[in-house]
């Protein structure tokens, strides 16, 4: 199984599904869909499928149009993916909320909605300032009825979840965070495969403490795990991968064993998705010690020193793990 750049793995998913579905469309603003392997192989969706099925050289800076036209095409029967830039995830939300999420129900099941909102995610990076660093939109979308939400953390899941989302007859919000794209990646098969929606992955087995983190926070958790192990703490680390529907069974099974739950997220504190993770677990498991680390309820500042202090990073996770064992 070859190593692949993250972006190549994603476009491979789109390309293969577009080959399988002649009426599938893929819309975007300026993220021209090309990717290249180190060996020189190229994916170029515009060249292969033409400007009508893709957005050609890119569409207007009009996120409601990009999402709305895709939702309209999906309502008519095309599988449709709309990729939106990272700083404006709210533009699409009205149409996703009132159309994509509700048409199946409103019509009494007449309508299908094979629509994927590929939402580029920002990151808690220094220098970008508040409008370009928001993370945690998954909790806003997860609150909408009829909408499924996934947030992959590595290239393998990125491809498999995207294929599963495209094949799903319901609308799926696919959060694509840049933080997870660099660094060591698992092998990515050439052929199409699904990472099933609603299935969490236990990334490390353990007995003392359950840590839950997805997408950007998974980077910090991975950095923290070796040091936590050195402290003699056995961590079970779970990546939910799909936030809605949430694989509560896997989370509950783990916390029944450890009785300790630490959730780490880059979203803002209030109503961040981690709060729902805790709510689901403590309703099902008695006597759980639970804690959440998150980005505080502030717009992200541009200053690097402020941003680093605000981030729930590895040293803070290690400290939290130690305190969870001794509290």
């Amino acid at each position, binding site marked *: 199984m070859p190593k692949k750049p993250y972006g190549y793995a994603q476009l491979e998913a789109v390309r293969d599904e577009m080959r399988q579905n*002649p*009426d599938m*469309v893929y819309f975007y603003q300026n993220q021209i869909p090309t990717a290249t392997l180190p060996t020189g192989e190229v994916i170029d969706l515009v060249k292969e499928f033409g400007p*009508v*099925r893709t957005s050609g050289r890119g*569409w*207007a800076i*009009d996120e*409601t*149009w990009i999402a*709305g*036209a*895709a*939702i*309209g*095409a*999906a*309502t*008519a*029967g*095309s599988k*449709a993916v709309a990729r939106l830039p990272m700083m404006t995830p709210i533009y699409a939300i*009205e*149409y996703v909320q*009132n*159309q994509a999420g509700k*048409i*199946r*129900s*409103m*019509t*009494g*099941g*007449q*309508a*299908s909605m094979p629509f994927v909102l590929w939402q580029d995610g920002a990151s808690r990076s220094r220098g970008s300032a508040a409008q370009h660093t928001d993370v945690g939109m998954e909790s806003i979308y997860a609150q909408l*009825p*009829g909408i*499924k939400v996934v947030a992959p953390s590595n290239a393998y899941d990125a491809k498999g979840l995207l294929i599963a989302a495209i094949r*799903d*007859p*319901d609308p799926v919000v696919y959060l694509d965070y840049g933080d997870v794209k660099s660094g060591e990646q698992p092998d990515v098969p050439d052929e199409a495969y699904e990472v099933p929606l*609603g299935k969490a992955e236990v990334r490390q087995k353990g007995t003392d403490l359950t840590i839950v983190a997805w997408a950007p926070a998974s980077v910090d958790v991975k950095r923290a795990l070796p040091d936590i192990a050195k402290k003699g703490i056995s961590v079970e680390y779970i990546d939910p991968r799909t936030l*809605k*529907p*949430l*694989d*509560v*069974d896997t989370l*509950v099974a783990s916390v029944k064993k450890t009785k300790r739950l630490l959730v780490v997220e880059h979203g803002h504190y209030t109503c961040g998705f981690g709060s729902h993770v805790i709510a*689901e677990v403590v*309703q*099902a498991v008695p006597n759980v010690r639970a804690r959440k680390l998150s980005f505080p309820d502030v717009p992200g500042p541009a200053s690097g020193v402020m941003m680093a202090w605000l981030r729930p990073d590895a040293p803070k996770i290690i400290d939290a793990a130690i305190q969870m064992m001794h509290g």
Partner: protein
Amino acid sequence: MSIEHARIDRRGLLKMLGALGATATAAGCNVSLGGDVSAQSLSGSKFDKTVALASEGPGGNPQWKAGDSLKFLPPQEIPTRGKAADLVGALPKEKLLGMYEKLNASRRWETVMKDLFLGGKDGLYGYFHSYCGEEAVAVGTIAALAEDDYIASTHRGHGHLIAKGGDLNKMSAEIFFRQAGYNQGYGGSMHIVDMAKGIMGSNGIVGASFYMAAGAAIHGKVRGTKQVGVAFFGDGASASPYYFSAARSCTNYKLPVLFVLENNFQWTGVPMALTVPTKYVSDYTKGLGIPHHTIDGNDVTAVYAAAKEAVEWARAGNGPSVIEAMTFRWYDHSGFSGGKVSQDGAMGLPYRTDDEVKQWISRDPIGRFRGWLLAKGLAQEAELVKIEKDTQAAVDASIEFARNSPEPDPERGVWNAHASGPVPATQFFNRKGLATSTPKTT
């Protein structure tokens, strides 16, 4: 001042068949449309042209007032000569009678519903946005479409569904929120739809139809068909950012879309006088250089002719058109405040004048089409009476059908959010699936 100008001699205008209006144009598209694209010449009727463009000051066009819809009051009769008359007159008789039947079905079904809502014996509840008075727009437009073309409807969508061939029994059952309704009780009046007939939803969000029609047009285009998507919308939806977004992009990408504006002069409870800075709502998009047809929306022949031209324009790959059909809704925005059993029109509403309502009712699109069919010798009185009786009988039977249909099982409430099955019933302490949010299939 403008009132005086509004009192134009419509009889005289009737004689001026073929005269070009000043506003309906294929502005700036650099394509010759033979000079006949003016929909006013299509119908032979003509609007007052003295309302100037907005100059300055708050509150829209300073020359507009409540009651100014009378400036657009069409003549008593539909002209029997002219391009639209020739075009529609040449249609097969079966098609003409079909259009008349659809007009009647829409009016009679809604009128019976109005009486039921006001009469109260069935305990009807929920929204009901009556389309009474505007039926010619749906019937004329949809008559110009092929069966596999798409339409995207609005909250005022009953007429669109009926014109597309909707089943009255399923419609009535949905108003009663019964299992046998089109939407099995999930939708009600505002969302009644038959998606198998190419209807992209009837929508409770003002302005939602644009992207639906555009998406349908894209769906046709990627499959290499010439299907068009029609976005019905009201003058209120013209303020939606989605309108400008979709009109702009559909023009840019030459998508086969019709923007059919049902201008009834009323934005829920706000008169157009306070909301529209231009003379015509369609003036907003004229800078795009696409064809604009401003027409008498109570003349089904004018609507058909304009829609036919817009459909041909779209199928030829030229992109969208805007049709602004001047019409009037007889009842309140939703419900029947000011209405009475066995009386046409709602009176005493604060945002319009009773005189306005009565004069528009006297230009009833159905009565005018009836008179036109007879005057042109295209149908016999007895044929039309039979259609009226049969339609009324079908409407009455649909009410009985609805009354005799069972309510949905309440537990259906957790279904249909997802294709895969129900979600957990989280409203109970002991709920199935407490430990899992994963929808289970059963």
